């Protein structure tokens, strides 16, 4: 196929945002037009991505739909391509963005146009991350995402938005700098930044450790792992709903994707060497942040901390390097993308109505807003990892993989399952059950049609993949097998080399 479908998926939102930019009028009609353009481009992009999935060949682990253009002559190229792992993230991104746009249109009142532009640009950058087959290109997309996010938090955020935006920027910048240095040194060592070539080249062992650490520092901040997670709760709390959704659903997943694609693919020896470190930090993340989540008074903060715990599962799964663990991690990321997005949207619903995120200002909502209560319940249970939701499939596979690698890690990580039940159900109880004590709640109204559409489509997928995750498994199956095979081959190669 000659049609550059990946570029189309990636840059369609950008084109949409340019169109919006061109609408220079502040009349109601013009604003409506911007909304339609945004909705149209994002949904069109989603269907384009579905079409991409449809054309995707699940019987090979090679990169597909490859596009190669000269960019900086003789140095690096503009290279796109996807495999079974990246396509799922593209689908997730193109699915979540339209929902975000709908929620923005539904609830944001100020500077809607600019917000929509930021979201569309964000989408392009995020999809670019998952398509890139060149390290420099990857770096540009990966770090470029910082800017729209920084703006979204800083402009449409809550009262402490500037502090949070800077904290977010400071943390992630720390990682970026190191990542950039690592990218440059890889070019210096191997003479290429083409990922397909890099996966073939065996980077000398002595370089691997430092390079791995540089990549790790960037991914660990983004993921986020303990102890560099503290920017996340603040960013979430201050970010507007759509910002939180993008952040939790997709931005965090870029780091997980980075671990799978680069840390494991490029530096097998170092990955093997640092696995205990990853396990240690992940276990701390799971137990520590679960306990912190338990004591939160702010709904958004609670969900933010729970995200950290859930991403802790992901890193455990990735570095078990077993089929179950890796597939579990990917599914967990997709599922967490759906669930955390839904939970933040749910918080946004009540925040729009009475402008409070404090758990204590709610209570007894089940009486007044039954539909909302049902939706929130579904996502609560999915976050708890109840069988029949997609959360279960990911978690159980990760733990299964971990058990094969290290029983202690599996046992400690499993304890997170108890804690998640505790903090989520306690949250639910305090928000929805009991008597109505806050008079302001009396004027709260149930979900409107847009909200029902957004939340029920997320709920549908959460349950669908809980009962029938086969489409996901089929897509990633070969790619993950190949990844593990390569990893083991590389590791064996380095070992025999060391023996000589």
């Amino acid at each position, binding site marked *: 196929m000659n049609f550059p479908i990946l570029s189309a998926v990636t840059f369609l939102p950008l084109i949409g945002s340019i169109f919006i930019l061109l609408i220079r009028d502040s009349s109601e009609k013009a604003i409506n037009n911007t909304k339609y353009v945004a909705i149209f481009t994002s949904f069109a992009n989603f269907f384009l991505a579905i079409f991409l999935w449809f054309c995707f060949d699940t019987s090979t682990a090679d990169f597909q739909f490859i596009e190669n253009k000269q960019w900086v002559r003789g140095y690096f190229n503009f290279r796109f391509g996807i495999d079974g792992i990246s396509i799922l993230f593209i689908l997730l991104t193109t699915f979540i963005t339209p929902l975000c746009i709908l929620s923005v249109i539904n609830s944001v009142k100020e500077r809607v146009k600019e917000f929509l532009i930021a979201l569309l640009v964000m989408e392009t950058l995020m999809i670019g991350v998952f398509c890139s087959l060149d390290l420099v290109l990857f770096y540009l997309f990966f770090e470029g995402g910082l800017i729209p996010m920084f703006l979204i938090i800083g402009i449409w955020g809550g009262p402490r938005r500037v502090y949070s935006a800077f904290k977010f920027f400071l943390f992630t910048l720390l990682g970026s700098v190191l990542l950039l240095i690592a990218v440059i040194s890889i070019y210096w060592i191997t003479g290429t930044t083409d990922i397909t070539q890099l996966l073939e080249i065996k980077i000398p062992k002595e370089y691997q450790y430092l390079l791995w650490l540089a990549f790790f520092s960037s991914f660990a901040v983004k993921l986020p792992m303990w102890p560099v997670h503290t920017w996340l709760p603040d960013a979430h709390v201050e970010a507007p709903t759509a910002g939180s959704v993008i952040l939790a659903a997709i931005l965090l997943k870029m780091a997980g994707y980075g671990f799978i694609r680069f840390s494991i693919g490029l530096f097998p020896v170092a990955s093997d060497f640092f696995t205990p470190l990853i396990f240690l930090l992940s276990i701390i993340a799971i137990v520590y942040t679960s306990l912190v989540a338990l004591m939160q008074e702010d709904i958004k903060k609670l969900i933010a901390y729970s995200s950290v715990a859930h991403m802790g599962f992901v890193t455990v799964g990735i570095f078990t390097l077993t089929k179950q663990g890796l*597939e579990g991690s990917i599914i967990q990321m997709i599922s967490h993308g759906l669930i955390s997005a839904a939970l933040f949207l749910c918080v946004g619903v009540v925040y729009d109505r009475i402008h409070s995120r404090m758990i204590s200002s709610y209570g007894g909502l089940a009486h007044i807003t039954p539909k909302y209560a049902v939706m929130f319940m579904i996502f609560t249970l999915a976050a708890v990892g*109840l069988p029949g939701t997609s959360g279960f499939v990911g978690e159980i596979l990760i733990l*299964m993989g971990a058990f094969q690698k290290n*029983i202690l890690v599996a046992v400690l990580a499993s304890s997170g399952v108890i804690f998640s039940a505790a903090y989520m159900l306690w949250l639910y109880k305090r928000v929805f*059950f009991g008597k109505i004590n806050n008079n302001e709640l009396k004027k709260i109204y149930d979900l409107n049609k847009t909200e029902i559409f957004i939340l029920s489509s997320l709920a549908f997928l959460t349950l669908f993949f809980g*009962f029938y995750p086969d489409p996901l498994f089929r897509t990633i199956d070969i790619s993950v097998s190949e990844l593990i095979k390569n990893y083991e081959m590389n590791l064996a190669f380095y070992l025999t080399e060391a023996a000589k």
Partner: protein
Amino acid sequence: MEYAIVFLPLIGAIVSGFFGKITGDRFSEIFTSFLVSISTILSFVVFYFVVVQGYANNITIYSWITSGDLKVNWSIKIDALSSTMLVVVGIVSSLVHIYSIGYMVHDDCKTRFMSYLSLFTFAMLTLVTSDNFFQLFFGWEGVGLCSYLLIGFWYKKPSANAAAIKAFIVNRVGDFGFALGIFLIFYYFGTVNYSEVFAQIPFIVGKQINFLGIETNVITLICLLLFIGCMGKSAQIFLHTWLPDAMEGPTPVSALIHAATMVTAGVFLVVRCSPIFEYSQFALNFVCIVGMTTAFITATIALVQNDIKRIIAYSTCSQLGYMFFAAGIGAYHVAMFHLFTHAFFKALLFLGSGSVIHSFKNEQDIRLMGGVWKKIPYTWILMLIGTLALTGFPFLSGYYSKDAIIEFAYLKNSTIGFYVVFIGILTAIFTSIYSWRLFFKTFHGKYSNEKIIIENIHESPMIMLAPLILLAVGAIGSGYLFKDLFIGYGSSGEFWRNSILFLNPIINDHPPIWIILITPLLIMISIPISYYLFLKDKKILTKFVQSHKQVYEFLLNKWYFDELYDFIFVKPIKRLGLIFWKHGDIKTIDQFGPDGFAKLVKFFSNKAVQFQNGYIYHYAFVMLVGFSILLTYLILI
């Protein structure tokens, strides 16, 4: 047909849950009850085929999870064990559905209630018909979810919400062990399907594993981990605290979930995994000891409680203990038989007490009842049947199953067997005493409720009594009728076939006559004694309580389990969470991380700013210093 059995309740749940508002209360009540009843009738048909023809089937619906070696299907497995469970679940569930129509008549959320009940039935059916550990886990947590939803059904009541969360989390602790058990199974066998796992078990006998630094036998470890799950679900000692609290839910729920079906899932699992448990004497002994401890401790607590439902709840724990120690001595079929009979009489007792509570306008304290047996004669006689069956009065259902356990234990002729006999008989006496205490205090003596005048006490409507009558028939006859099928001579070959594995042949000797007679005799003697103590001459008891105040308090406070857990787990965990948050995140990571960094930069930039003050002599001075340093450096080199 198998599809219909499992999925009809799900359809009911979905229709009633999502379209209840449109279709109306009455429709959803009848619709769900009808579908569950159909499913029950079909279960009977299946059960009949299993009994008569030895029918067995294993249907694969579709593939659920496929990841590397792990292949899990949604499935329906029919054999003797699952068909027995289908019948138990079906009967109780359909009767509870019908009963609820009457019981919930004053409630606003009938459709939601019926939907939850049907959803529970569906989850329970998937649990028992599973052919692998994953689907079992699905059902296992699914019933836990429904239990959570139904306990907290009256969500305006804070105590109900607390109880619901407690039930879910305590069960999660059990599930944690259960999940680890499944991981271990997969680790060793590379599969989670029963048949494949069971086939490989004999080959790993004697294999050791290092589990968290402890060297143990693999099979024993698998059994113990799975059993932790059973302890949670079946409310065995240490994880039993949620069950009495679960009585906050509506009474039909207590009958269905917390007496007859869900709580017996643990027993079902042990029996289902008999091919694993049989190979670990240690695990069997552990099951036995946990069962005995639970049976005894919860029976002692039941002696002094005052809430009618809590007494029956503790009694349930205690009876589940019986089932476990029956399984622990290798008498899985007797455990299943007791599970079967227990479902009838315990559901009867719960629904009967529901009828009492309904008559008393939601009063549950037996100290505020009494003397109403003439007012509610049907309930009275039904409760009488239930009580007799529970205590094991001759020729009612409890008699056959409970005595069979004690006899089997005796014939085992081992130390643990004799312990079982001793605890079994002792607990039987306690059971008898607390049951009669409940019965006499509720129906006889002086009427002692000041809020409701006795004239206002009315019998419950027919729609509530009819299911009770059917259950009463079961409570009377199920023991006698099914004795031969379940535990009779050769039942293991003819009925159970390969659904239960008996490594050692079952002993079919006759125990000495005294062991057969002792329990019924003691139980019959205890009736007049309780009558005397609780009705005729209450002073003896009052005096006894006063002289043994501490023991009484100890029992009344349920051995202080809740307080202990609060002290050991709940409070420290909350405190730890606060410390991690306030001191870990805010005071350490942020202070030394971004904030510290920002401060550092600010500090240096402030210092740097001071240099640029515009005074030429400052600049000259700095230049001079710099120049001299440079000079020194050059000279030294």
